[in-house]
């Protein structure tokens, strides 16, 4: 959550740890003479990654998966926000819809991925829909909880100043819900990556998930790792972007990183 609160020394320590692990991995593969099909050395992964990027193949797959993730995320979170807003508006709507929402959530989305592929085809659309269904719930749940989290004294304040329902919604409920909604969006965005890849596993002709399967079939384990590295980078980038958005939007939340002079 608080990437920015890390000191340069802590960052250096993390990088050193990674470098140490990679070095140990490299030496272990060489010394123990492990088959590259079982576990490729980091250097082999790096070469595969550079080649894939140079040829444009990995970049193309990355682009496809990124698009599916983002489109699914936007679709799922807009649906989550709208439904959450409606459900939080009235207990009657909540009683009507919520049992179905819970039932929907308890079904593992991964299990219905093949069904979605049948309905939405083998192209990008089915991946977008799978990513959307997975991203939907955390946004929905956090929107409802957030809109309901308004302290009683703030509601009394608005009542005493004769605010309309609408004014109370936009001037108090929504700002009060924003921290929750942003957490929901963060979780939803990361889950959308999983949704897109699962969709590609079921059936696809492009995307990083497809690439992982292809490399696996041809026993190109270094290629699998190269695609995994790109997926991880994408996931981290999305999470960091959400953290940045959170800082920008929640300007009033006081988590300014303390300056650590002592190190």
């Amino acid at each position, binding site marked *: 959550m608080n990437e920015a609160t890390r000191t340069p020394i802590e960052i250096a320590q993390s990088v050193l740890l990674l470098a140490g692990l990679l070095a140990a991995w490299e030496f272990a593969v060489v010394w123990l003479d492990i088959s590259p099909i079982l576990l490729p050395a980091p250097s082999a992964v790096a070469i595969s990654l550079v080649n894939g990027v140079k040829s444009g193949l990995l970049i193309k797959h990355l682009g496809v998966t990124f698009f599916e993730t983002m489109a699914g995320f936007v679709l799922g979170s807009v649906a989550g926000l709208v439904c959450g807003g409606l459900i939080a508006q009235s207990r009657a709507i909540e009683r009507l819809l919520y049992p179905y929402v819970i039932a929907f959530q308890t079904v593992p989305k991964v299990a219905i991925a093949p069904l979605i592929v049948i309905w939405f085809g083998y192209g990008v659309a089915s991946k977008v829909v799978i990513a959307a269904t997975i991203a939907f719930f955390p946004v929905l749940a956090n929107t409802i909880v957030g809109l309901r989290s308004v302290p009683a*004294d*703030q509601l009394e304040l*608005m009542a005493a*100043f004769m605010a309309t329902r609408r004014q109370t919604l936009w*001037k108090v409920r929504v*700002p009060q819900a924003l921290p929750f909604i942003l957490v929901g969006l963060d979780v939803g965005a990361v889950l959308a990556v999983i949704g897109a890849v699962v969709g590609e596993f079921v059936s696809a002709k492009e995307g990083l998930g497809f690439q992982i399967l292809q490399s696996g079939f041809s026993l190109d384990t270094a290629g699998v790792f190269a695609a995994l590295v790109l997926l991880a980078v994408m996931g981290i980038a999305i999470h960091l972007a959400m953290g940045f958005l959170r800082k920008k939007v929640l300007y*009033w939340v006081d988590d300014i990183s303390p300056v650590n002079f002592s190190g």
Partner: protein
Amino acid sequence: MLVSDLAGKSADDKSAGDKLINSKPADLVTAQNVRMVYTSRNAELVTALDDVSFGIAEGEFIALLGPSGCGKTTLLKILTGTLKRTSGEVTMRGQPLEGPRPDIGRVFQTPVLLAWRSVLDNILLPIELGEGRLQRRDYEARARDYLKMVGLEGFETKYPHELSGGMQQRVAIGRSLIRDPAMLLMDEPFGALDAMTRDLMNVELLRIWQASRKTIVLVTHSIAEAVFLADRVFVMTPRPGRLSEIIPIDLPRPRHLDMINSPEFGHYVRRIGRHFATHGAVA
């Protein structure tokens, strides 16, 4: 001495009140046999107020004094119109009070500022809600005046989390004044302040009151504060919350802090202290 002293005291009050209305201005606010019973979560009934009656004249300064839990906040909520009384009558300007009104300002026991709004935007919130966004400009100068008055000049663009608790409560006071309400209901507004700032704020409050002739009802735990500020002290006792005595304070105005050491002042403080002692409640 005031019409309000008679209200709700005896059975023939109504006729007495009617006669007096012709000669003196009617009370701004009256309460008749107000009762408030809360239903708690486990369906238990809590009688927070029982048989509370009084009248408050326009321009009067009332201190509502009583120990914790005796129903002071409850009474203030009912007068604000945000809490529906279980039974009894409340009127303002002769009309039954059935909900919040624009001419009543309210200061809560905690500041209740909106964290995402700057100090200036918090003070202007009632204007935005009542008069609309476009009218904001007309009130900005006044908002800045109030900020200066409560000693927060230059803090317009700060956010609540950047202020101390006492500063936040002073912003809340500015917010309650912005629509220039006829009546100000203040729930322990200076409870969170240190003794020195508290004295200064009390003097400042008296100055505002004297200049604007607002009607003020101020809740407090402090006997000395009640005597220093009020025309009349409403003394409340708990379980159930009742208005057990109304004590007029005949100290001269304007009042100064050094009056606290006068024998008359001490007399009032002792008298109220005795009242709590005999009623078994410690303020």
